[in-house]
């Protein structure tokens, strides 16, 4: 993933034609069979079902009309409230009790799925507006929490959920830690790439003051297709 790829991903999630697949995904996830399958184990519940609901929310948000989007954006300066909503939802849903309650209390399950849909949509509608600093703040918090919670789950000698086995809990912990670490590294790599490119750009712009110099560098760094 680089800056370009990330932007393409965001654009893809916002493609209006993907709103229908988003709705379909939500419908499939809501099926009792899909629920049973995804909630049968602790790691699938948290690192598969949660992101799938968020993905569905993100795709659905792409289907919003321009006017609706503008209206929402008025309440979401620089994507701050959207990122806050997503972060709050993810944080609250990491409390182990949620996993147990979602299995037995339909109201909690409904609230959980709705919150994840909203979080996915909020992320989609806020990410690009947020800018590098807010994105970094959001990711720094979420990924650190993911890694810490993952370690807690993996290391705890006690079962944190009555409905799941200890081995399952360990696996979830390892998944959470691995995913958080991977995303953090990818994001850092992207930021480095972006910074390096920006430096190159400013270097080039500074170079315009010495036209000969700039022309020489331009020739060296970006040869035109015609030249052999």
């Amino acid at each position, binding site marked *: 993933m680089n800056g370009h790829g990330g932007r393409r991903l965001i654009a893809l999630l916002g493609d209006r034609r993907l709103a229908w697949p988003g709705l379909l995904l939500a419908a499939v996830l809501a099926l009792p069979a899909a629920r049973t399958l995804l909630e049968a184990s602790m790691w699938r519940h948290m690192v598969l079902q949660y992101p799938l609901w968020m993905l569905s929310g993100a795709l659905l948000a792409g289907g919003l009309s321009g006017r609706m989007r503008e209206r929402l954006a008025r*309440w979401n300066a620089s994507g701050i*409230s959207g990122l*806050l*909503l997503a972060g709050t939802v993810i944080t*609250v849903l990491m409390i*182990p009790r949620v996993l*147990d*309650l979602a299995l037995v209390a339909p109201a909690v399950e409904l609230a959980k799925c709705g919150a994840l849909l909203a979080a996915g949509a909020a992320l989609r509608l806020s990410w690009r507006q947020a800018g590098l600093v807010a994105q970094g703040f959001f990711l720094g918090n979420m990924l650190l929490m993911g890694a810490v919670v993952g370690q807690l789950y993996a290391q705890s000698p006690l079962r944190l959920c*009555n409905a799941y*086995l200890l081995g399952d809990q360990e696996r979830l912990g390892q998944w959470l830690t691995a995913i958080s670490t991977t995303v953090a590294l990818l994001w850092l790599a992207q930021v480095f790439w972006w910074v390096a490119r920006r430096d190159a750009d400013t270097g080039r712009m500074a170079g315009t003051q010495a036209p000969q110099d700039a022309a020489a560098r331009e020739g060296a760094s970006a040869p035109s297709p015609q030249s052999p």
Partner: protein
Amino acid sequence: MVLRTALISLLVAIGGYAAASWLTHDFRVWTEEGARRLEVALAPVPLPEVALQGTRLPAPTLAATARGSVTIADFFYTRCQTVCLSLGSTFQQLQARLQTEPQDEGAAPLRLLSLSFDGAHDSAAVLQAYAGKLGADPDLWRFASVPDAAQQRALLERLGVVVIPDELGEFEHNAALLVFDARGRMVRVFDLAEQELALNYARQLASKRS
């Protein structure tokens, strides 16, 4: 725009705090098991009138069996090869304490009760044999199971016991020491490691009757 964003952000933060606070009983518990123990301590759970089969039971139903004495109970099943064995030894130690340290005058009697959640297999005869193997004193330590599957499910649900099959073909459950009071209510849930605490609490409860 900034003002609206600040307002909605505040609402989101309050909502998140309220949800987290509700889920964790004001940030005191993080797990369902913790919540169950706290809820039981705050509001005792009346035992259901489920029919029992077992060893030397004073009454045919659970609530009636529990009434009149303070009971330390736990759930197990006789085919268990793992954690129930340590449960058995916990109860053997509790029985030894009850035998060597007599109750105060006028206090309610203290009893031990091992409840099986494998009612289909653990008949009265099977329980009797199992009790014999553990050296249970039939007057102090009773064994029982619920033969009716629907009643058994209702009992497990009422007491917050979750039984799930594990990879070894056995059952994992939130094993704990349940304390029933003399009025037939579950009043406390202790961790297996808190055996001493459970015994002291039960003694205290029994002596309060007079």
